[in-house]
């Protein structure tokens, strides 16, 4: 593969040096091909985002249209001084960190299994592993809810030999157990996604490198740490970024299982409650904008500090060059 050979700098210089007629035609063709999609994306995302930012500067309740009032950054001040916001941000960060970390480990294991599986089994194995990911989140949330529900669930009966679990345990009544079930369901459902992304990364690791390592007498552990993982760093980072963004916006599981009780309210739930249940469009928009800013921040951190290159799917810098 060409991971190590490519260097972006000369390419840029070449482009600047003067475009040939063919080059210009290619650029034009590129815009013609991507332009419509670009415009549509802009109109369906930029407009609502701009509208939300605009609305967030008002005190505006849907059922009191006459009382709409400009409050500037007042809504943001309320948000940032309110413990309810910090609490839900904390829960959201906790869910993001824990689920992504666990999913990464489990997903890597599954990817290895899929990668190593015999050709005959591979198709079936991949399908089986992907099943949870194919289930609609609301449906899986209900399934998990009824599994753990104190009135109709079977977990309390099956696992009553485990200390702490018994017929009287209401999983959704207190924070530690409630958040555990929510995170477990999230992990169960999205690990296949990470596994699939990592599998793609594993497939990109050149066999020659592994062979060479083996010839040099590297143990399995060394092959992993020195060859496989460094070569699939880009895939890992993309998987982490995608899942982190996804996990940060967690909604369905919490909505179905606790509806925010027992201190499990997450940020998107707070935005939903404010703008949809309370019909406070101004404050709700402000929370949505904050949520959006958080998502942007995660993206920025990932790209700036971990050098995730979404365009090529491979690392922009030669991996071996630093030594």
């Amino acid at each position, binding site marked *: 593969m060409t991971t190590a050979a490519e260097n972006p700098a000369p390419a840029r210089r070449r482009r600047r040096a003067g475009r040939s007629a063919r080059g210009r035609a290619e650029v034009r063709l590129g815009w013609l091909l991507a332009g419509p999609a670009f415009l549509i994306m802009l109109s369906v995302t930029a407009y*609502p*985002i701009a509208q*939300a930012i605009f609305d967030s500067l008002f*005190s505006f309740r*849907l*059922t*009191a*249209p*006459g*009382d709409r009032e400009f*409050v500037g950054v*007042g809504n943001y001040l*309320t*948000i940032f001084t*309110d413990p*309810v*916001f910090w609490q839900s941000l904390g829960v959201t960060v906790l869910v993001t960190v824990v689920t992504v970390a666990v999913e990464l480990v489990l997903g890597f294991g599954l990817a290895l299994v899929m990668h190593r599986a015999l050709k005959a089994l591979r198709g079936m194995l991949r399908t089986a592993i992907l099943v949870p990911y194919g289930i*609609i*989140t*609301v449906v899986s949330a209900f399934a998990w809810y009824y599994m753990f*529900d*104190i*009135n109709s669930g079977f977990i309390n009966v099956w696992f009553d030999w485990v200390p702490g679990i018994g*017929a*009287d*345990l*209401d999983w*959704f*009544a207190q924070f530690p157990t409630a958040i555990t079930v929510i995170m477990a369901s999230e992990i169960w459902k999205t690990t296949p996604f990470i596994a699939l992304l990592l599998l793609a990364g594993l497939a990109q690791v050149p066999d020659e490198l592994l062979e060479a390592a083996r010839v040099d007498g590297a143990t399995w552990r060394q092959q992993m740490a020195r060859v496989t993982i460094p070569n699939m760093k880009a895939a890992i980072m993309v998987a982490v970024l995608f899942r982190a963004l996804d996990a940060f*916006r*967690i*909604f*369905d599981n919490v*909505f*179905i299982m606790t*509806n925010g*009780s*027992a201190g499990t309210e997450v*940020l*998107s739930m*707070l*935005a*939903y*409650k*404010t703008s*949809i*249940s*309370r*019909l406070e469009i101004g*404050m709700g928009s402000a*929370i*949505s904008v904050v*949520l*959006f800013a958080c998502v942007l921040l995660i993206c920025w951190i990932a790209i700036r500090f971990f050098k995730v290159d979404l365009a090529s799917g491979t690392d922009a810098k030669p991996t071996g060059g630093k030594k």
Partner: protein
Amino acid sequence: MADPDSFGRAMDVSEPIRPPGRLGGRRGRCLLTTAAALIAGGLLASGCAAEAEAPVLTWYMNPDDGGQQMLAERCTQEADGRYRIEASLLPRDAPQQREQLARRLAAGDTSMDIMSIDPPFIPELAEPDFLAPVPEDVAEATTQDTLDGALAGAQWNDELVTIPFWANTQLLWYRESVVEEAGLDMSGPVTWEQVMDVAAEQDKHLGVQGIRAESMTVWVNALIASQDEQIIEDPSAPAGEISTTLDSPAGTAAAEILARIGDEGLGGPGIASMDENQSMLLFQGEQGSFMVNWPFVWAATNAAAEEGTIDAEVPEDIGWAQYPRVDEGTPSAPPLGGINLGVGADSEHPDLAYEAVECIVRPEHQAEYFVTNGNPPSSAEAFEDPRIAEDYPMADAIRESLENAAPRPQTPYYNEISTTIQEHYTPLDEIDPESTPAEADEYVIDVLRGERLL
């Protein structure tokens, strides 16, 4: 913006499939059918011309056992071509019904001809003039014999803004065997204290709703109203000036009852997820003793006994009484529920819509709705129907309860107040009668001033 994907998925569960607005109506579909027929090349008569003359009234209804749909069909027939009622189903959950109605009304949806509205949400929709004014003759014809509690719930600022359809109230249901063993006399009014004492002595559980949901506000409000007090001092005050009186002797007494049930575990281990249905299941089981619940439990318990999912003798062991008192000397004020019918201000046919409403709420229709769907009428006359006494031996108790029932706080900011109560009064075992009511009061003020999130 935050997560359109999961938002969409979460809402798909309950939103009706039919799109709103003009195109959603019969005419729109006719246009589409005609267009489709043209495209197909066949110019067959589509039958639209004749039907298009009858204006279509859309009735946004809460899910039930098909009773409202049946009334819609009957009134359409009676109208003889003057209008046609088409049903559009709202979500199952009352707060979600409110969300959809409010969003559609605020957006000026012209298809909001008839709406089934839960009483506590009426002021919020009436205050910004989202509802078409009730014509005097309709008001007169439909509220002649409406039971007091139901009538109170249909008004806002002393004006009738919706038409009462069916009314709901809670009774105290009890297991005869438990009461007998405890030696409690159920022929007269009983108090919460007596009920709790019996449950504690007999080591049984109470069927109450401890889940963080609307039912919590229903309960708290009934406890305070049963002491002749109300949660809000001045319901029509603007947002910044509304305050609740949870921190009062009546509020403290209410909190003490809730806290005792929580502390002593009288509601069973699953109290935090106990809604109306779960508490009914608990009541039907071996641990059942008393339960406060809506009359649907009677039909549901009988059906379960017939199907064999519960012991066939359970229905015979069930008795009923008026909602428990807080003070021995003050009559209880049971919760009020039900559905009122409103007409959207932007409806294209408000006159026809009110004509249809008049047809829907006729006493014989209300009586039939009770018999077929288990939802009690709001009209006194409807209770006279012989079919009711046959199927619902507790019909008189329901009627009495409806006369004493107290609506939940009537204010455009009901949702904020209810949510605050739900958040502060759950879980039950964390209620501190000394501090919880005061905290909730303070929170309501801050939230309504826009100084806090909820």
